Each structure stands twice: as structure tokens, then as C-alpha cells.
């Protein structure tokens, strides 16, 4: 029997060897059942760094002691595979049953499987005959329902095969004894996509913001220069030009990059909630306030950067409070009697003309000057048309990868349409259009038929010209936009889902859509 077992292990793993004698002083062979060591066996072993073994197995079957080891240097062609794990388990279990030593030593299974699983890059789940998971190794959070698995097994034939789950296909092997299942293992190879190729330099580098247009490149240079400082930055530009992206970029390039980046959209949060979101509150400061109080975004951004998007929509009373934060670098929670110091860098952004708001007494002039230490104007996409092709290529590539689809390209006709379009929703709209096309197109080449209807044949090119909606207003354009919004609401409906669709079609965010609806008093 001894030879049979050793031979089986030899066959399964390619090579096993008897343990060196010097190891015996550190390992006491099992008095019963099995034991597995994954070196170092003890912290006192003198060969701790040069141990020649990957795994040491100790068995006692019918008064015979087995001490075998798997050397680190095995033949190149022989690898520990999931199949060899199963074979190994079978050998051990069968040997155990053959000798009628019904030791269900879980330690053996646990240690061996976990060791081997790490070696062979697999995820696995081991169930007992009651369908309970007794052991698993997985890198991702997977909630497997044992009853589902057993149910699926009922449909499958044989003791081996594969089953489909919502977490992918798993191979399975059913352990059977006397025609009764005694256990089940299911496994799959971990996705090769992650961690197989560790890139040693990835930590130190950052990607660039896409754009080669001359003015855009100058802005990127300016951003790189001011990112390292502590100055407050005011980003101005139309909706969808990537203001938050720039804010993240600045944060990433700054010495605060390891600190938090907290973004808040001042227009998307109801006025009465914005104060508590920004400043936090003390325990019992108002009805419904959380026990123990809550820190505001300023406090959460401590040591990092706070990004105040759509600052032009901030109510006047809060503007005064914000001004104090900018001046004193201290925040006072609602209901608090003391101020708390905060170490933050502020980046604000707006798509409105703040000077006009100041004239209309809707924005504090002192706050404007405090915010606009470094004003940065981010150009609209139509102001950097030479980047459209590059951006289309960039998003096309990334969206295909994200959707796990084969790469696609745009046909020359599609490119022509996209290059000539005015992109009122800027890069956000461009990304939406590419996502739309990639999702629908099953071929290699995206022809105009896969573009959103309003872009096809360039028909609605003029219909959707929102070009100057937000900067240089004109009465006619306002009217056009209002009409357009009404048409779209009539077409899609007024539910939140419909509004999401409308926003997507217009290439604007939901928050911007709500703002427009409010502005034009459309209900």
C-alpha cells in the first residue's frame, strides 16, 4: 500500500520525495490521520529561507508512517492543476477508505487545498454532503447558494463536468461513496485579467488627459504647474467639458494625492440639505439628525481636496459660510459652538458666468475673488475640434474593453458625421454617443445607422444646437432650448427614468437637466 500511495502521488504531481532526515527534528509525524505542512514548518527551522520543499505531507495509515515532500524544483512541464488536486484528494480519500480509517481530517483538506489553490491560481468551494460550504478560496465576493448548486447538479450527468452560475462556469467533481455523494468541489481558474502581469512601475505614473489641441495643451501645462501649489482653483467651462476630471487630475498631481478627494455638486443637493452636507452637524442639532452628529464634506476632505461643482448654484447664505472656511480654514458644524480646523485645498467649478451672477446679486463678489485665485477656462469640444478624432478613438477603445467586446472602428461616413457635429454636451455627450454605438453594433465597423437617431444623416444637426446655451445667452437660443426640452418631455414622459433618457440624449447630466427645467420653469 505504501508504494501504491507514493506511486499515485508521484504520478499526480510529477515528483515527490522522501523527507530529509534533518527535517524530522522539526516535524513530529502525525500520531493519527494526516498532517500537512506548508514550509516553514516551525519558526525555529534553520533552513527557513532555503527550504527545498513546497509542501510536506504526513500520513499514518495502518500503523505505517508516511512523510513525503513536494520539492520546489519540479519538472517544468508538470504543474499543479485543478485536476491534480482532485486526483490527490481522491488518492487520499480512497487510501483512507481502503484502510477503513474513516478519518475525515479536515485539516488535511483545508491546508492542502488552500496551498494548492494558491499554487494553481484557482477559486474553489468545497461542500460537504449536507450542501454546506466547508472550505473555499476566492478572491472576489461570491454568494453561492448551495441549494442552487445541488439543484444544478441534479440536471447534470456524471460525477464530473461543469455548471453555469451567475459568477461564471465552474468545473465540479462529486465525491461518491457507496452511490451516495459525500462531498462536492467546484472550481474555476481565476480570471487571467487580474494580477497575472504585475506591472512594477504602475504606482509612480499617471495617465494624461486626452487632447492635443494647442490651447488645450497649454491649459494642461498650466494645470501641471499650479497643481503642486496650495492655491484655490476656479474651473470654468460648459457642462460636460470635464471639470471634475480636471479637478481629480489636479488632486492627483498635487502633494495631497494620497489624501481624500471629495466632490460635491452644489446644484444637485436641495438647498436645505446642502449646508449639513458641507458643514456637518452636531448631535441633536435638528429633528432627524443622526446621533453623535455627522462630519461634513469639508471635514471629510481633511488632508485632501474638496471639489465644489456648480458653485454658482450655491445659495447666498451658504456662500457667506463658505467664505469663512476659505479665509480661516475652519468649519463649524451646524449646532456646534466651536470651529474645527481643516486642512483642505478647494477647487470650485461652474458653468455659469459668475460676473453676471455678481451683477444680479446672486453671487458674492468677495467669494468670487477668494475662489478665483487661479481661474482656468476649459474649452468646449467645438473649440477644439482637432481633438474629436482622438477622443472618439480613445473612448471607442475603452468602451469596447469595458464592455468586453471585440474592438471596433468607425466607418469614414460615421467619422464625418461625428466630426461635423457641434457637440453641445461636450465630451460627456461624445462618450455617450460612443457607448450607444458600441452597445448596438455587433460588427467590426460602426456605420452611421448605429449612431443615436438625432445624429444620423446629420439631419438634426441644427435641431440640437445648444451651442451657446450656457455662456453667451441669447433670447432665441433660450427659447429653442425650452421648446426642445418640452418636446423631449412630451416624447419620453416625465418620470425620473425618462429624464435620465432625455439627459443622455442631450449629452448632459441629470443635474443639468433639472437645472434647465427649473430655469425654464418646466414642470
Amino acid at each position, binding site marked *: 500500500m505504501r508504494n501504491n500511495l507514493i506511486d499515485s502521488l508521484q504520478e499526480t504531481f510529477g515528483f515527490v520525495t522522501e523527507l530529509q532526515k534533518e527535517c524530522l527534528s522539526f516535524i513530529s509525524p502525525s500520531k493519527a490521520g494526516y498532517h500537512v505542512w506548508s514550509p516553514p514548518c516551525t519558526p525555529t527551522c534553520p533552513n527557513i529561507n532555503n527550504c527545498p520543499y513546497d509542501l510536506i505531507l504526513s500520513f499514518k495509515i495502518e500503523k505505517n508512517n508516511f512523510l513525503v515532500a513536494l520539492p520546489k524544483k519540479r519538472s517544468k512541464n508538470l*504543474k499543479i492543476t485543478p485536476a491534480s488536486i482532485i486526483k490527490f484528494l481522491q488518492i487520499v480519500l480512497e487510501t483512507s477508505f481502503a484502510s477503513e480509517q474513516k478519518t475525515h481530517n479536515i485539516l488535511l483538506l483545508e491546508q492542502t487545498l488552500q496551498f494548492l489553490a494558491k499554487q494553481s491560481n484557482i477559486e474553489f468551494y468545497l461542500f460537504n454532503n449536507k450542501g454546506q460550504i466547508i472550505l473555499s478560496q476566492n478572491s472576489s465576493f461570491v454568494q453561492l447558494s448551495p441549494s442552487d448548486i445541488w439543484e444544478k447538479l441534479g440536471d447534470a450527468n456524471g460525477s464530473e463536468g461543469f455548471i453555469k452560475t451567475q459568477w461564471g462556469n465552474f468545473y465540479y467533481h462529486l465525491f461518491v461513496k457507496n452511490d451516495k455523494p459525500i462531498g462536492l468541489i467546484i472550481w474555476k481558474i481565476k480570471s487571467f485579467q487580474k494580477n497575472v*502581469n504585475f506591472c512594477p512601475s504602475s504606482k509612480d505614473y499617471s495617465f*494624461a488627459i486626452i487632447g492635443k489641441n494647442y490651447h488645450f495643451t497649454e491649459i494642461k501645462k498650466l494645470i501641471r504647474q499650479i497643481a503642486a501649489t496650495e492655491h484655490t482653483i476656479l474651473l470654468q467651462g460648459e457642462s460636460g467639458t470635464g471639470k471634475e476630471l480636471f479637478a481629480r487630475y489636479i488632486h492627483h498631481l498635487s502633494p495631497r494625492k494620497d489624501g481624500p478627494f471629495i466632490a460635491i455638486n452644489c446644484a444637485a443637493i436641495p438647498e436645505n440639505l446642502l449646508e449639513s452636507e458641507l458643514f456637518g452637524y452636531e448631535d441633536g442639532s435638528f429633528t432627524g439628525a443622526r446621533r453623535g452628529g455627522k462630519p461634513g464634506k469639508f471635514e471629510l476632505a481633511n488632508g485632501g481636496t474638496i471639489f465644489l461643482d456648480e458653485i454658482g448654484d450655491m445659495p447666498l447664505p451658504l456662500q457667506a459660510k463658505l467664505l469663512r472656511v476659505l479665509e480661516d480654514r475652519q468649519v463649524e458644524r451646524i449646532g456646534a459652538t466651536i470651529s474645527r480646523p481643516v486642512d483642505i485645498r478647494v477647487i470650485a467649478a461652474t458653468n455659469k458666468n459668475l460676473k453676471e451672477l455678481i451683477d444680479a446679486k446672486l453671487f458674492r463678489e468677495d467669494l468670487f475673488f477668494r475662489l478665483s485665485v487661479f481661474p482656468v477656462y476649459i474649452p468646449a469640444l467645438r473649440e477644439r475640434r482637432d481633438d474629436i478624432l482622438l477622443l472618439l478613438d480613445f473612448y471607442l*477603445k475603452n468602451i469596447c474593453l469595458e464592455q468586453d467586446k471585440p474592438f471596433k472602428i468607425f466607418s469614414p461616413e460615421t467619422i464625418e458625421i461625428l466630426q461635423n457635429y457641434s457637440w453641445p454636451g461636450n465630451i460627456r455627450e461624445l462618450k455617450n454617443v460612443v457607448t450607444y454605438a458600441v452597445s448596438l453594433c455587433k460588427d467590426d465597423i460602426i456605420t452611421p445607422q448605429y449612431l443615436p437617431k438625432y445624429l444620423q444623416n446629420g439631419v438634426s444637426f441644427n435641431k440640437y444646437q445648444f451651442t451657446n446655451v450656457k455662456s453667451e445667452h441669447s433670447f432665441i437660443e433660450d427659447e429653442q432650448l425650452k421648446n426642445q426640452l418640452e418636446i423631449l418631455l412630451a416624447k419620453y414622459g416625465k418620470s425620473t427614468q425618462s429624464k435620465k433618457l432625455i439627459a443622455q440624449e442631450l449629452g448632459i447630466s441629470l443635474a443639468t437637466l433639472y437645472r434647465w427645467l427649473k430655469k425654464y420653469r418646466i414642470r
Partner: protein
Amino acid sequence: MQEIISDWIEPLWYGSIFLGSGGGGKSELLASVLDKALQNRAIPLLTLDELSESNFFCGIGLLGSPELCEENLPSGKEASIAIEELEKYTGFQFNGISIVEGAGVNIFYPLLAALQTGLPVIDGDAMGRAFPELQMTTYHLENLPVTPLVLVDGSYNVHLFLEKQDTFLLELNTRQIVCQQGGVGYFAGFPYSGSVLKKVLLPSTLTFAREIGECFLHADNYHELFNLLLEVTSNSFYGPIVEIFQGTIKNISAYETAKWKAATLISPKGEELQLLFQYENLLAFKNGHIAASVPDLISAIDPNKLKPVNNNEIYEGQPLVLLGLPAPLRLRINKALDVVGPQCFGYRTIYVPLEKLYWDYYHEKEVFF
């Protein structure tokens, strides 16, 4: 309209080696000839947008061994003969030269031809990198023939391929002549109008090669070089570079029965990488897994000298960094992979994009879009 002047040549040379992905041939002598010739001359460079739709242009390139071309330097006259013959047979008058293979020697030879003929060169190419065969072009993907094509061998004999024929057969036929006639030949073919070229050519290859080269000229250390290359490649039709491996060459071997050669690199930690190449670097394996595959570019650089390295120059004990550069999208669609994917070189596996192989690097980091 831009012009190529002598300042272009050094960065273009580094860029041409990088885009050669190990192959493309040595182009040092050709580059120095051009550098001299451009001291008081310039070559007009046309962007794809600047091409007149109705004007005709022809593709120029070198077939065969770039090493033999270095031994017996061409003058550009070969191409001018080929262009003249092609004009005769097509009835077109060519208004410029297009580059077929935007890497290695085949970036420089069309420039020499442009100087000889006085024609402008188009900023674009049909491969986006170095590839060994004529059918591995974007023309092939659009089902556009290479012919009519005129081949001038090293002894100035003219060979005509006027009938439309399968690109693969043409590749075999031209290669046969080149082998019989001194190992190197110069061709003029791909006679197409501006309207066609706008759709077919990969844009801005020459300026991209130059920008790549500038990174090598401006960097003071490897870290800086990587950052510069990352900025340039991110803003291109290729994609952000990724570091595949850092190490020294442990050994170089050739598989006797196949076209393949292999270099094994070893890192300071003892990790090994197998780089498989024919002329160009085609596959890299790390820990038994694919670490990069054609058509993505695998380009070696010397981290100490901060220079790109051609496969002709590698030796055992040499320190190298392997960088991966995602190929332009046009080369990575299924139809293109049938012509330039790993299987076309005899490796029976599907192409895995660098962005999937280095998922964490490309996707879990801050990617700014």
C-alpha cells in the same frame, strides 16, 4: 503645411526604431544621409486632411534585407525610376508619396525618394509599426490591391506587377525576385487618390514617431523617459505604454525548425521573461502566461543609454526594459487580426490586448477620462 527639416531626423530615427518593435531594420546610415541632405532643403509633409481628394499618391518602400541596403546605400533614384514607370502604366501623375510601413528603414527610404523626386510625403502609413509582409497593411483590410506595383532591384532592373493579384501571391512573387536579385528591392505601388488614402492610412505616423523620439532626446533618466512616453502615447491613436519587464538578457536562441528566435530576460528578482521574435518582437511570456502579443508593439529600450533597441543590436548580458504599446485600433479589429494577429505568425492563440493583460494598470489606476 509642415516641413521635414534636418531637426526631424534624430528624433525620427529613435521613433522609427521604437515603432519597429524590434524589427524594421537598421536605419542609422540612411538617417545620416538624410540629415546631411536636409541641411539646406526640406520635405513638405501633408497631413491626411491636407490631401486633395482627387490627387493621386503612391506608396514607396523597401523590400528585403535592410542590412544589405545599409551595405549598398540607396540614393532614392530607385524609387524615382519606379514612380516614373508606375506613372507610365497608370496614367496618373503622382502628387506625393505615402509611407507603407511607418517604422525602421521604411520611414526613411520614402523620405529619400521624396528628396530625389521633389514630391511631398504624407504623414501617415499603412501598418502603424513594422510588419514583415506586404499584405499586413490597412489597404488589405479595405480589400484594396497593392498593384499595379513596380519593383526596382539592387541592379536597377525594373519588374512590373500590373495585374491585380492576391496580395499574398504578390508578396511571394516580389520576395522571390528580391532574393534572386541581391536581397533588396525598392517599390512604388499602392496608387491611390487622396480620398482613398484619407480612409485607409493610419494618421500622423511620422509626427508620432518624431514625438516618441523627442522623449528619448529630452529624458534624463528612465523614470522621466517613461513619463514622457506615457504622455505622448496616451495622446495618440495607439494608447498608453505599459512596462512589461525590466531585466538583462540571459540568453538568445534560435529555434532551428522554425522562423522563431527567443531571448530570455531575467529580472533582478530572478523572474524570467521569454521574448519571441521573428524579425519583429511578436510575443512575450512571463510565468508561463502571455505578457504581450502582436499586433501590440513590444519595444525594447536600453534603460542606461535611454535609447530604443533594435533586435539586431541585442546581446547576452544587455540590460533592457520592454515596453508595450497598444497597436492602433484599426489593427486590432477581428478582420485585421486575421492578417496581423499571433496566428498569422504561427502561434495558435488568440490575441489578448495589453489593456486586458495589464488590467490593473490600465483600469484600476486613475485613468483620466
